[in-house]
């Protein structure tokens, strides 16, 4: 890196670092220690990020928690109500149902974050001409906005849409199914769209894992007489476990926060059958204008997410010890 003189804006003073000091340090030497003279240097780097964190995350988060103990809304003058919002929440059938729906979404998205993308990753993890194109196509829904996806999926869900055409052709039902309006189908439809949109992300996670597996492991297994299925269960699956852990962590966070798809597809309907926890928070705030109540609901969701993250951290930390 001999071109280090090119940049003008450097607040650098010549550093005199005794090599012996550097050698003496047992831990890997890092810049806070080496430079020594300015232990606050790391903080200078962190300053802009920290400022943004305080202004757009910490401060609003504190305000949200505060608001959750009030009856803050656009019609009321503000009153502190203690835990009243929380008590009401746990008697609010819509909220409890919303938590249930979020749980269903979380379970319903599992195949879309584990089995299907893992299978796809194995499928596209081969040296074929043009395989890059297929990977890109499978990833396409990930880069498009949920609004676009909702407009596009309308052709799939409509009364005379693709799914109903399949239903009619296969003779499964005489009348068209109103996928987004039928209480039996609406949540499943939301899960289908969310799952479909996310598959590409998880496929990439598994692909990263697959490409890190040394090829000789498979060769050795083959020499030992392992068939394709055995090679999958004995070599691929164990080595993919840490990547599944990552995928599951992402899936849980995403599932509990599902909001935009509900907002653009069903608006929580029919009859709150697709009201997820995320949508509940939104509708209390922006349709019922009960900001205090909405904040309490949001705080509960937040607590659940943190609890899940901690559980996940515990579980995966145990496993990461025997990761290559």
């Amino acid at each position, binding site marked *: *890196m001999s071109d*280090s003189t090119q*940049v003008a*804006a*450097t607040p650098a003073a010549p*550093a005199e*670092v005794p*090599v012996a000091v550097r050698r003496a340090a047992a*831990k890997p*030497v*890092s*810049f806070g220690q080496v430079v020594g003279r*300015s232990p606050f240097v790391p*903080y200078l*780097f*962190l300053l802009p*990020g*920290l400022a943004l*964190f305080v*202004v*757009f*995350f*910490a401060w*609003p*988060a504190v*305000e*949200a928690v505060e*608001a959750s103990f009030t009856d803050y809304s656009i019609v009321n003058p503000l009153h502190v109500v203690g835990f009243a919002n929380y008590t009401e929440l746990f008697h609010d059938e819509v909220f409890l149902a919303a938590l249930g729906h979020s749980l269903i979404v979380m379970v319903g998205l599992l195949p879309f974050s584990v089995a299907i993308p893992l299978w796809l990753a194995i499928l*596209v993890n081969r040296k074929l001409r043009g395989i890059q194109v*297929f*990977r*890109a196509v*499978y*990833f*396409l*829904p*990930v*880069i498009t*906005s949920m*609004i*676009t996806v909702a*407009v*596009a999926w*309308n052709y799939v869900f409509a*009364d005379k849409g*693709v799914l109903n055409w399949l239903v*009619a052709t296969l003779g499964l039902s005489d009348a068209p199914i109103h996928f987004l309006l039928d209480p039996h189908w609406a949540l499943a439809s939301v899960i289908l769209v969310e799952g479909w949109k996310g598959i590409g*992300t998880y496929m990439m996670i598994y692909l990263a894992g697959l490409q*890190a597996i040394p090829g000789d492991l498979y060769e050795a297994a083959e020499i030992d007489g392992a068939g394709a299925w055995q090679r999958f269960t004995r070599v691929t699956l164990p080595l993919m476990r840490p990547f599944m852990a990552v995928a599951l962590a992402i899936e849980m966070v995403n599932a509990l*926060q599902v*909001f*935009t798809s509900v907002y*653009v597809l069903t608006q929580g309907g029919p009859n709150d059958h697709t009201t997820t926890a*995320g949508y509940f*928070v*939104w509708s209390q705030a922006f349709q019922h204008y009960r900001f205090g109540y*909405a*904040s309490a609901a949001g705080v509960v969701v937040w607590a659940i*997410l943190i609890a899940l*993250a901690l559980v996940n951290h515990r579980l995966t930390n145990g496993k990461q010890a025997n990761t290559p």
Partner: protein
Amino acid sequence: MSERQVLRRRRGARWTVRRIGVYLLLAAIAVVFVWPFLFLLATAFKAPTQDVYSFPPSLIPRPPVLTWLHNAWTQIPFPRYLLNSLLYVLGGVPLFVLISAMTAYPLATASFRGSKVMFFAILSTMFVPAELMLIPRFLVANQLGLTNTYAGVILPGVLSAFGVFLLRQAFAAVPAELGEAARLDGCGEWRVFWTVMLPVVRPTLAISAIFGFIFIWNDFLWPLVVLNDDTKYPIALGIAYLTGISGTDTRTLSAGTLLSLVPIVVFFLLLQRQILEGAKGAVKG
């Protein structure tokens, strides 16, 4: 012809058949991922005489018409919204990359008091439900005079756990000797960062820029809350708006949605290799 040659040829034939099978499978799956978009494409060009929905579904507009594209372009201030989105991307992406890198660098390479706290603080931003933050964030933005401004749209999206983690992995993989050599040469820490470390992690910078682009381009919830002047709408919000005003006019809506897809899809196709590598790199540890 020797026996071995025959064998090789036979194996070649079997291999070719298998390969065709794999391609057919790959193509069938590809259809699952693109079909909603294909209908979007078809409907945007269908003449009023042709049904949008039919059994079996029809994908070929006969004859193709440009009416709906024109409608979408004029019913909402389409060029204006595209320009706005471009502004948000041009303003947001460099900040996104720089802040991610500056935050990630010490977290990856230094051990200092509070590094753990900062790390978990950034991590925690992933767990806060976005809907919970909308109102208090709006109130904060309001107090800072950021509501209904371009800066107000851009700034909250600049700090992202994803960007920080991506670059933290990249910095952690750079051999420590590299920075030390520069330090012994008398470089200050900023100079080490700017002239030594950043060039080394340039591929990852590119990846985080790409993801920053995608995040910013597709976000519509925060702009919806923070903007009350619809001349500042990004195109994603414009499409939501078009959904509202065009109601049952599926053709215009499809045309508008299609138009809004063009920039991000072109961008994706141009950079798909880096995007896909990046999606993988984010989880490699």
